[in-house]
């Protein structure tokens, strides 16, 4: 390729050379190569950008190249860009768009200048050709706004405001036509006042200015930081795409539209979109005029839209993804302006991934990659039960309507003060926080509540912004709502309500209902998620996924959500039933005994376990021993006060009887369930094989005459990680508590990890180089290395890991790659986990098939 050539037409450019033409440029070249109609244009290469960066100015050779390609553009469009003389009667001037296009998509780059080439004289011609001086004025204002902001670094909004004022004044004065000279200088004056320079009138000068601004934007602070953080080379540079503008309001038939190859809200297959006859694309987007559905337009122009539909579906086939297409029809000719992957709702995203898989357009891995953990969580998010919602509406329980400020459904007791909200929520009740307005003083109350309602304020108020940032459903600006926080009452019209009244909030519609509208969780089958979960399960068939539970109901739900088994923390069971008090009383009372005897409690604990096991029906079960060392029951089990009567509780295998009683209860309960495999009893803080051996001895005692169980170490300390391979030597399964390991690596109290502060502030001050919460730190690498030695030394030992809610879903894949095959999770995380493990398993299968050399860049 000629290295001195700095400009290529779309037809000349090699679509595969993304490094030279950028993402946008090679995308357009590809469309042209495939015979799709795009407005003509040319690309200024990244090589020109590199020269610009070295010299600090546009390459001298570029001028003549630009002249040549502009001339070619004038020829194919039969329109003039450079001419200084009057345009022929009825001829529209050539205007162009100028856009950046780097080889890697990245933020902070100059965006787009549209309508470049307009000036007062050419606006006159455009007004004549379109029959609308108002349109020509709009084109001029839009151009000034973008050029002022991007090239001149002036306040574009201010400039556009001046322009609009000028047009409004002209209309008010009933002048026959807008004075384009006047409009131009009004905006130029604003620019000069702001930055001391104005938009040039000469189109070629405008073009050079815009190209230089695109190149210059490569080095904006934001772009440079992004490259540094993401390891993108500074020397890539950006290309510039210059493309003829087409207009949907010149002649007939003309118009503009947007289309999706599938419905972006529901995911339903079939072309879906809107068309605005005689309109411009931005009018469709802005909603200033009402477009018609695509099917209606297709009835009037069957040939044109038939072609369009064929093209759209063919492109979808090629790109194997749902596409969003912007198009314009200019005098009966169709142009594709933009073809890109379509944005979609979480629901649509799931359905589309499942459909593409079923249609054979996506591989299982591609289908699973089509959905993110956030989207799955969103699809799972509870919503008002449809029948109950309809009933609430029909029975007149709509209390008040405000501005829908933050999506989602929630219900709870109305509380009118942030401190009380925190207290009520702390007691386990759902709270809807009702405030006149909110300020930072309300933050703790907003965090504690499940929904937020304010009487004053709009969609940009403090309450709205903070509710969205916190992910709380919110309705703001309910003008009919009167709140008396001191008096603990609120009124709507003539009705007075006491604090504590049940309310239901729909943050998507702005409706607030009186009373509790129950929430339901959508079934996986209703969304297409079922299909994805199925292939993910198949891919990760070697994995066992267990959900934590405490009650029989939870056990049944956990299994209904696809878990292979259950996990139980004995402390939860004892606290929930109140039996914990019996245990602490026994331990304190037997302080002077030589041998502690807890056998009276064996059956108490067994009776608690049996209903849960029955509900679970004999699935694999892991039970975590009471952990007095970490005081995981907080106020219920105080290590300090127990250490005096029973010093042994301070060590993992320090009081045999405490362990015996738990294991005896477990073995007894398991023995009652037909065909139940021996449950695993796991103990934290064990780090030495001798501790494990001692635990096994106690277990033998506990099992006598009862069911069998398997005991193991739940590695939770740095020492345990160091000795993981030794522990594995004498274990069927080596268990890791990933959340506890994160906590114990630093020794900070566990509470530090359950909220963003104070660690965020700590990170902000730069006091740690690695954030321990992200699972990418040195310590996490150390854990994986240790698991590597387990797999190498004791290949028969399985690895099981408990991952906490606060930990990142990516950690699942990382542990999978490190060899873990058993996962214990909160029930809410099951679907996310299944999909993430499916991705990890499929990815690993791909990696094995592709030899390492092929992946080297």
């Amino acid at each position, binding site marked *: 390729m000629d290295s001195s050539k700095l400009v290529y037409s779309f037809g000349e450019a090699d679509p595969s050379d993304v490094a030279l033409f950028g993402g946008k440029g090679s995308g357009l070249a590809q469309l042209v190569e495939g015979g799709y109609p795009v407005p003509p244009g040319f690309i200024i290469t990244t090589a020109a950008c590199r020269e610009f960066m070295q010299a600090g100015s546009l390459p001298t050779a570029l001028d003549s190249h630009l002249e040549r390609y502009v001339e070619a553009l004038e020829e194919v469009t039969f329109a003039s860009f450079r001419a200084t003389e009057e345009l022929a009667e009825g001829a529209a001037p050539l205007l162009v768009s100028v856009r950046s296009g780097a080889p890697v998509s990245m*933020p*902070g780059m100059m*965006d787009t200048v549209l309508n470049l080439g307009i000036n007062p004289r050419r606006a006159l011609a455009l007004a004549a050709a379109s029959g609308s001086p108002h349109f020509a004025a709009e084109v001029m204002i839009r151009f000034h706004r973008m050029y002022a*902001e991007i090239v001149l670094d002036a*306040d574009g*909004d*201010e400039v556009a405001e001046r322009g609009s004022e000028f047009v409004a004044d002209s209309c008010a004065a009933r002048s026959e036509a807008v004075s384009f000279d006047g409009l131009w200088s009004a905006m130029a004056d604003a620019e000069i006042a702001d930055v001391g320079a104005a938009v040039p009138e000469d189109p070629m000068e405008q073009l050079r200015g815009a190209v230089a601004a695109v190149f210059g934007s490569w080095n904006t*602070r*934001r772009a440079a*930081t*992004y490259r540094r*953080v*993401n390891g993108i080379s500074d020397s890539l540079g950006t290309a510039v795409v210059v493309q003829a503008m087409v207009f949907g309001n010149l002649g007939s038939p003309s118009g503009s539209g947007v289309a999706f190859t599938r419905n972006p809200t529901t995911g339903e297959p079939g072309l879906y979109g809107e068309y605005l006859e005689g309109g411009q694309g931005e009018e469709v987007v802005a909603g200033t005029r009402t477009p018609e559905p695509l099917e209606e337009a297709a009835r009037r122009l069957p040939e044109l839209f038939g072609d369009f539909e064929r093209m759209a579906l063919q492109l979808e086939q090629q790109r194997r993804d749902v596409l969003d297409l912007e198009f314009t029809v200019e005098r009966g000719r169709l142009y594709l302006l933009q073809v*890109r992957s379509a*944005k979609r709702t979480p629901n649509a995203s799931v359905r589309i991934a499942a459909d593409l898989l079923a249609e054979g357009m996506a591989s299982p891995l591609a289908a699973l990659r089509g959905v993110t953990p956030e989207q799955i969580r969103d699809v799972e998010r509870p919503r008002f039960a449809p029948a109950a919602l309809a009933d609430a509406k029909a029975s007149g329980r709509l209390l008040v309507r405000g501005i829908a400020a933050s999506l989602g459904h929630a219900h709870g007791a109305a509380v009118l003060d942030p401190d009380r909200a925190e207290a009520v929520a702390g007691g386990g009740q759902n709270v809807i926080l009702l405030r006149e307005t909110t*300020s*930072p*003083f309300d*933050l*703790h109350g*907003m965090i504690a509540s499940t929904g937020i309602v304010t009487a004053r304020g709009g*969609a*940009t108020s*403090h309450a*709205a*912004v*903070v509710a*969205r*940032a*916190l992910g709380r459903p919110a309705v703001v600006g309910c003008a009919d709502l009167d709140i008396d926080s001191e008096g603990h009452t609120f009124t709507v019209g003539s009705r007075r309500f006491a604090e504590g009244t049940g309310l239901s909030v729909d943050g998507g519609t702005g409706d607030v209902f009186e009373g509790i509208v129950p929430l339901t969780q959508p079934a996986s089958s209703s969304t297409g998620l079922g299909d994805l979960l199925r292939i993910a399960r198949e891919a990760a068939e070697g994995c066992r996924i267990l959900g934590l539970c405490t009650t029989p109901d939870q056990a049944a739900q956990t299994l209904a959500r696809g878990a292979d088994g259950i996990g139980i923390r004995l402390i939860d069971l004892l606290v929930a039933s109140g039996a914990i008090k019996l245990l602490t009383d026994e331990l304190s009372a037997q302080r002077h005994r030589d041998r502690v005897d807890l056998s009276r409690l064996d059956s108490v604990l067994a009776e608690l376990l049996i209903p849960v096991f029955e509900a679970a029906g004999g699935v694999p079960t892991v039970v975590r021993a009471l952990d007095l060392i970490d005081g995981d029951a907080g106020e219920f089990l105080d290590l300090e006060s127990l250490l005096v009567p029973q010093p042994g509780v301070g060590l993992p295998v320090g009081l045999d009887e405490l362990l015996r009683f738990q294991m005896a209860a477990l073995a007894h309960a398991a023995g009652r369930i037909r065909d139940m495999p021996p449950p695993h009893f796991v103990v934290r803080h064990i780090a030495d094989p001798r501790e494990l051996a001692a635990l096994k001895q106690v277990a033998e005692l506990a099992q006598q005459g009862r069911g069998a169980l398997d005991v193991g170490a739940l590695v939770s300390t740095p020492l345990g990680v160091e000795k993981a391979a030794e522990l594995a030597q004498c274990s069927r399964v080596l268990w890791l508590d990933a959340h506890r390991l994160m906590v114990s690596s630093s020794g900070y109290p566990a509470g530090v990890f359950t*909220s*963003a*502060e*104070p660690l*965020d*502030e700590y990170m*902000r*001050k730069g006091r740690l180089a690695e954030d321990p919460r992200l699972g990418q730190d040195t310590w996490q690498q150390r854990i994986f290395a240790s698991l590597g030695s387990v797999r190498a030394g004791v290949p028969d030992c399985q690895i099981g890991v408990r991952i906490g809610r606060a930990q990142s879903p990516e950690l699942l894949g990382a542990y999978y790659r490190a060899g873990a095959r058993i996962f214990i999770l909160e029930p809410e995380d099951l679907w996310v986990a299944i999909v993430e493990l499916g991705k990890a398993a499929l990815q690993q299968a791909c990696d094995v098939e592709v030899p390492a050399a092929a992946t080297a860049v």
Partner: protein
Amino acid sequence: MTALPDEQFLLLNALWLRKMATRGTMEENAGLSAAAAESCLRSAADHQLVRVMGDYYVLTDSGRRAVLDHYDSEFASLRGDPELLAWYERFEGYNARFLELMSAWQTEADEAKERTYARLARIVERHVEALAGAARWIPRYSHYAARFERSLEHVDSGRSDYVSSPMVDSLHNIWFEFHEDLLAVLGRPRESLED
């Protein structure tokens, strides 16, 4: 109406704006050294201007009065300054756009979001430049500029919670606090003692 010692005001003002803050947050937002913050806090506690709730501090009623009185005594002379009022008018223009873009950013999907953020960041940058001009009336305003710049840097590094999250020193948090501060300087605080 009495003025507080300078550092004392900086610290209590940081608390007044944040409503509830750890010592670290106050230190940072007031731009004080740990030692200075420590001695200010001790004296504030002695005069019952602040109350401790766990790791957090809040102002007492007399603390809030002291802050608002300080604004009145220190800045009353500025309140008729036409140049400051013009500066304020300009800020209100930015403010409307900032909040509009902030909401758009929160509700938009990826690509549009990126474009919106670029415009949002531009407004913050312009405001940061404008703060340099306002520092001739109120020198401590340069500290807001430093906070904005640090948060912009965080967002650029991929921490998008620094746009609007109330849990970190996000652009929205700083902006909100600055707005409150400016309104109090002009004698129109949103929160009066009667609230």
